[in-house]
C-alpha cells in the first residue's frame, strides 16, 4: 500500500504548512480511492497512477488555488482588505501613470508647494472601485468605506511614520533648517496625499453607493 500521506506531503507541501489536518484528510481520500479502484479489479500500477492523477498537474494547481481561496479569502480579507488592496493598486497606478506622462503635480499651490490635483480628480474612480468590490463581496457600509479609504489611510500612516522618523533623526542632527523644512512639508504632504485623497475617494464611494442603490433590481 503506498504511503499516501507522504505522497500528499510531497506534492502539496503548502498544505502541510497551512493545515496538516487537510493533508491527512486528502491522504485518506486518496487511500479510499485507490482501494476502490483495486476493488474494481484495476491493476495496482494503473490504480496508483489514476489516484495520483488527482493531485498532479493541473488538478494540483486547482486544488491549491481553491484551498487558498477558501482558507485565506474569508471575512475581513474578502470583504474589505482585498477591495482595499485593489483600490490602493489603482490609486498607485494612476499616480505613476500621471508621473510617467509628465503630468506634474504643480497645478495648484495651496500650502506653499505642488499638489497633485490631476491625481485627486482620478481618485473618485478608485474610491468607487473599492466600494463596488466590497459590496460584491461583503455586506456593511463600514467595510465599503474602509475599502475605499484604505489607500489614504495607508499613505497617511506611512507619511506620519516617516515624519516621526525624520523628526527623531533631525533631533540628533540638531539642524534648525532641517526641522523647519520638515514642519513646512508636514503642512503640505499629509493633506495632499492622505486627507484630500480620502475625501475624493469617499466621493467616488458615495457616488457608487447611490448609483448601485438606484439601479438595484427589484427583489
Amino acid at each position, binding site marked *: 500500500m503506498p504511503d499516501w500521506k507522504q505522497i500528499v506531503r510531497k506534492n502539496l507541501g503548502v498544505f502541510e504548512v497551512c493545515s496538516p*489536518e*487537510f493533508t*491527512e*484528510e*486528502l491522504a*485518506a*481520500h486518496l*487511500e*479510499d*480511492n485507490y482501494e*476502490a479502484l483495486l476493488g474494481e479489479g484495476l491493476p495496482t500500477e494503473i490504480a496508483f497512477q489514476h489516484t495520483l492523477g*488527482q*493531485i498532479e498537474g493541473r*488538478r494540483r494547481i*486547482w*486544488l491549491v*488555488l*481553491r*484551498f487558498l*481561496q*477558501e*482558507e485565506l479569502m*474569508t471575512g475581513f480579507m474578502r470583504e474589505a482588505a482585498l477591495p482595499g488592496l485593489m483600490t490602493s493598486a489603482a490609486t498607485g497606478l494612476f499616480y505613476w501613470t500621471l508621473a510617467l506622462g509628465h503630468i506634474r503635480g504643480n497645478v495648484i499651490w495651496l500650502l506653499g508647494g505642488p499638489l497633485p490635483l490631476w491625481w485627486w480628480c482620478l481618485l473618485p474612480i478608485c474610491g468607487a472601485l473599492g466600494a463596488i468590490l466590497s459590496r460584491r463581496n461583503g455586506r456593511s457600509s463600514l467595510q465599503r468605506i474602509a475599502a475605499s479609504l484604505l489607500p489614504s489611510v495607508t499613505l497617511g500612516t506611512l507619511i506620519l511614520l516617516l515624519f516621526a522618523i525624520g523628526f527623531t533623526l533631525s533631533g540628533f542632527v540638531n539642524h534648525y533648517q532641517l526641522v523647519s523644512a520638515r514642519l513646512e512639508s508636514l503642512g503640505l504632504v499629509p493633506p495632499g496625499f492622505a486627507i484630500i485623497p480620502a475625501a475624493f475617494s469617499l466621493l467616488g464611494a458615495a457616488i457608487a453607493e447611490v448609483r448601485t442603490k438606484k439601479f438595484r433590481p427589484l427583489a
Partner: protein
Amino acid sequence: MAAVNAQIKRGSAELAVLTLLAENPLHGYEIAKQIEAQTGGVLRFDMASLYPMLHRLERKGWVKAEWHTLPNGRRRRCYRLTAAGRKQIAPLRAQWRAFFQALESVTGFQNA
C-alpha cells in the same frame, strides 16, 4: 447524461452535501461517492471542489468534523450536520425550488 455547468454544480453542492449529511455522518470520500451514485454521475466532486467546500461549511458552523478511527484502524475525518446546518436545508431547498420554477416558466424545460 449531460454535463452540468461548474457554476450550477457549485451552487447546488452545498444543498446536496447538507441533505446527505442529514441522514448520517460521512467522511469526504463517502460524500463524494454517494452524491455521484445518487445522481447517476451527473454531480461529481473532485477533491478541489469537495474539501474546500466542506471546510467552508464547517467554518459557517453548518457541519462539524471529527476524526473517527474505523474498525480497520484508519482515521477518517467525518462530517456531521449541526443544528444550524439542519436549519439551512429548508431555505436552500426553497431557493432552489423557486429557481427551477422561475427557469421552467421561462424555458419550459420540463417539457423539453
